[in-house]
């Protein structure tokens, strides 16, 4: 016999459908017989439903601008580094 505590420990896996068949049967039996656990089960299911796929908010534009500025600088620095390397390689090739 499952206790309510057992049920609570398994409710997450029960909702995800990841528990084994025997456990699933026991959980189903319990949730149909125990009104309190049914409420917990149903409201947890609804919790997942409201959150699922919730899009994140837009970034505040100031934060986005600063991010883009920092990245643009970093990209430019990398380009510069690369072209230095290239010209260094060229000059090495020229001298060898």
């Amino acid at each position, binding site marked *: 016999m499952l206790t309510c505590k057992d049920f609570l420990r398994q409710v997450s896996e029960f909702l995800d459908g990841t528990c084994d068949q025997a456990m699933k049967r026991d959980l189903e039996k319990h949730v149909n017989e125990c009104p309190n656990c049914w409420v917990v089960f149903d409201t947890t299911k*609804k919790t997942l439903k409201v959150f*699922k796929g919730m899009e994140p908010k837009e970034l505040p534009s100031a934060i986005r601008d*600063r991010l883009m500025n920092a990245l643009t600088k970093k*990209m430019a620095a990398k380009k510069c580094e690369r072209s230095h390397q290239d010209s260094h390689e060229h000059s090495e090739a020229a001298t060898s």
Partner: protein
Amino acid sequence: MPEPAPFDEAALVARARSGDDSAFGDLVNHYERRIFRLAKNITQNDEDAEDVLQESFMKAYGHLDTFHGNSKFYTWLVRIAVNEALMKLRKRKTDKTVSLDEQLDTGEDTLVREIAVWDDNPEQLYSQDEIREILDKAVASLEPIYSSVFQLRDVEELSTEETAEALNISVPAVKSRLLRARLQLREKLTRFFQRKGDDVFAYL
């Protein structure tokens, strides 16, 4: 208006790795809001979250050549962001090491205090802005070890394994934290979503 091109993470990463900065820009555009949300949930303030956001993308850009595509780019990015966010927390609490791996589970059972039936479509009780506010606040009030797991698994729908990899914790830790996160959120949302006029005691 032309349809925007479908987002193809692997193709963008390949182009970015070969030096195409606009492809990296597209990856930033796609993930910046999610990384900011995660950083904010962990650091719990805008300023630190902004630093984490910047540092994460700078590091990802600088270390693109070390990303070998064994995992998804997003999982790799989250890992960088979580490390940056934890460093922020460590700086704040110098006396204490902080990790998402620390065992905060006390062995105490998941508490359930609120037993009240909810409306069938509780989200329809509020405007979209109100709902967002309610949900954001509820997640923000969780401990970072719970909010990060919840965000990745239940909001962004990563698999248990991907979540474990991104947060650098074990699969059983993902599962036990997810259970606690879900039950805590259920508890917090009951106040907003319970069916009005119900006699709570009728269910006890």
